[in-house]
């Protein structure tokens, strides 16, 4: 594409009028953006993954050039303007696809809090985890999920990684205390599910946490 444009640029410098511009771009300029619309999932359905954990991939690499632009015209013919990019309608109130929460908070389990930018468990916070370990030993069938959370500072992406580090630090400490690793799972919510929404350290502190929840019987 670059080569095409470069040639075009040189031609322009040499004085070719811009009326010919559409011809300088890729061929797909003329065909419009709709030509790809029917290709859809050309690469097959959603279950033919050749490796577990990898789903199907459509062909996404075709760029549509300048799409519906046709250039200015001294005697323009009428162009119908549609609604632009086709977007499926979503009914926000529909319950289909709604996720059910299989975990619940448990009064016997305490949150563990972290310092800014840190996933180290302080001496003070070990007390909370010690109690959690005791609770898990006396509720020996309970399955616990450790959610890692972050405050609103920093990027969404890095906070997901940070949240996972926090959740894993809490899990590892519980395992050190003798809780079976198979009873503990981790998930990171980064800064996406804050428990407090103010822009203040008192609030940030509450959000930098490992939150322990118990799997329900369902």
């Amino acid at each position, binding site marked *: 594409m670059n080569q095409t444009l470069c040639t075009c*640029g040189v031609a322009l410098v040499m004085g070719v009028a811009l009326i010919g*511009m559409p011809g300088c771009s890729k061929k797909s300029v003329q065909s419009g953006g709709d030509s790809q619309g029917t290709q859809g999932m050309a690469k097959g359905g959603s279950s033919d993954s050749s490796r577990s954990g990898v789903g199907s991939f459509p062909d996404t690499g075709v760029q549509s050039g300048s799409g519906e632009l046709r250039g200015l015209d001294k005697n323009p013919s009428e162009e119908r303007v549609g609604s632009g990019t086709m977007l499926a309608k979503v009914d926000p109130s529909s319950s289909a*696809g709604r996720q059910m929460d299989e975990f619940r908070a448990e009064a016997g389990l305490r949150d563990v809090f972290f310092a800014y930018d840190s996933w180290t468990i302080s001496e003070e916070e070990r007390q909370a985890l010690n109690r959690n370990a005791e609770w898990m030993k006396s509720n020996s069938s309970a399955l616990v999920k450790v959610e890692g959370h972050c405050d609103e500072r920093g990027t969404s992406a*890095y906070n997901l990684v940070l949240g996972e580090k926090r959740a894993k630090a809490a899990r590892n400490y519980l395992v050190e205390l003798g809780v079976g690793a198979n009873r503990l799972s981790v998930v990171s919510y980064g800064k996406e599910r804050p428990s407090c929404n103010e822009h203040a350290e008192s609030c940030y502190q509450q959000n930098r946490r490992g939150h322990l929840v118990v799997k329900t019987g369902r």
Partner: protein
Amino acid sequence: MTQVKLISAWLGGVLLLAGVVGILESGAADVFLEATRPDFQKISLGVAGIHNAGGPDWLGGRIEEVLKRDVKRSLVFDLVDLPSLGIQTPDIGNGMGAGSKAVFKQAAEKGVSVLVWGKAGLKETDKEADVNMEGFVYDSGSDELVGGKRYAGSPSVVRLMAHRFADELVFRYTGEPGIARTKIAYVAEQGTARELFVMDYDGYDARQLTADGFLNLMPQWSPDRRFLIFTAYRNRNTQDIDMIELATGKRWTVISLGGLNITPALSPDGNFLAFASSHEGNSELYRLDTRTKAIQRLTVNPSGDLSPSWSPNGRELVFVSDRGGGPQLFLMGSEGSNVRRLTFEGDYNAAPVWSPRGNWIAYVCRTHKEYKLCVISPDGQKRRQLTTGPGVDDSPSWSPDGRHLVFSSTADGKSHIYMIDADGKDIERLTFQGTHNSAPSWSPAS
């Protein structure tokens, strides 16, 4: 290392009015390219009204307002205010009549290079309403009526008519498709859930795409604009990477390896998906061949690696790693070779995005405890901070023409989405509704 100047020259009569469009790179990722060069001369353009031709009073004014904003945001044109130059803008029709000639002459004398005007009307029948818009372009350099456009459509596409006309103007004078018809995907909070939305590039016409009631995060466009790829949570427990087809709403999981699977980025040719996954322990970068489904691990170290972004030629990746302590930007070949650190200033640099022209990488930099936008050249030689002040800025994403960035910020309290020129000027807020809007991703040009 070669660089080729693409100079778009508008030739009219004997006058050569040069508008330097930009420079396109020809391969190497470390070529310096300015999206808006210091010597870039904007083309002065005046809008002489979109006049009502049978329809409600607001119609012409609405189209004119949208068109003017598009022209201004294009950064190709310098929008001039005709009345302040003493140029009155009555309905000058669609031809080279005597009345319009006087206006053309005035415009030429005042240095207005391009004059745009038009008319719009609404026809209503029992069954339907139809808006008709005509737009015309006069170039004072060539003293010529260059041409025009005629659009028809339902009243719901009035803004799109203006957007398409604006893009025709940009296309005419630069050969680029313009950005007025592009879209921005983003995440909006609904209760405690975060769902995907898509809106026009100017913040209008937001549409919801997901409604699963939990977290859908950090959408990225496919190169062909037909899909979004994003992080989602299956059963609230595992982070997977999902795709959704915009036209049908069909959604499916593409990466579910266990652990954290985040920050997907499709290569410019769509043949590879780079992403971060912690399924082997800590967060590492992987590359999936989308045709063979083969997965290649790109990074090997005990720290967190994430947020890959492709160079426009697909040969390199910029990414975040905290292997040195705090998060910093690193570069490597797209197959994992030649890893080198890019950022050394500050102790927190993250969320990199490579510009469409290859010359800049935008990212979030922490300065004075605030998270702001910075840009750095891929060779690390040039660095600039684009935003200042309080608030957490996050998730920069380039416009396809490389002249703007969109990003989220808590500068006004709640997280909202903003647009900024690539040189740090002219911040424009795009979202005003809701409790939290974040993770904007600018679509490719159509």
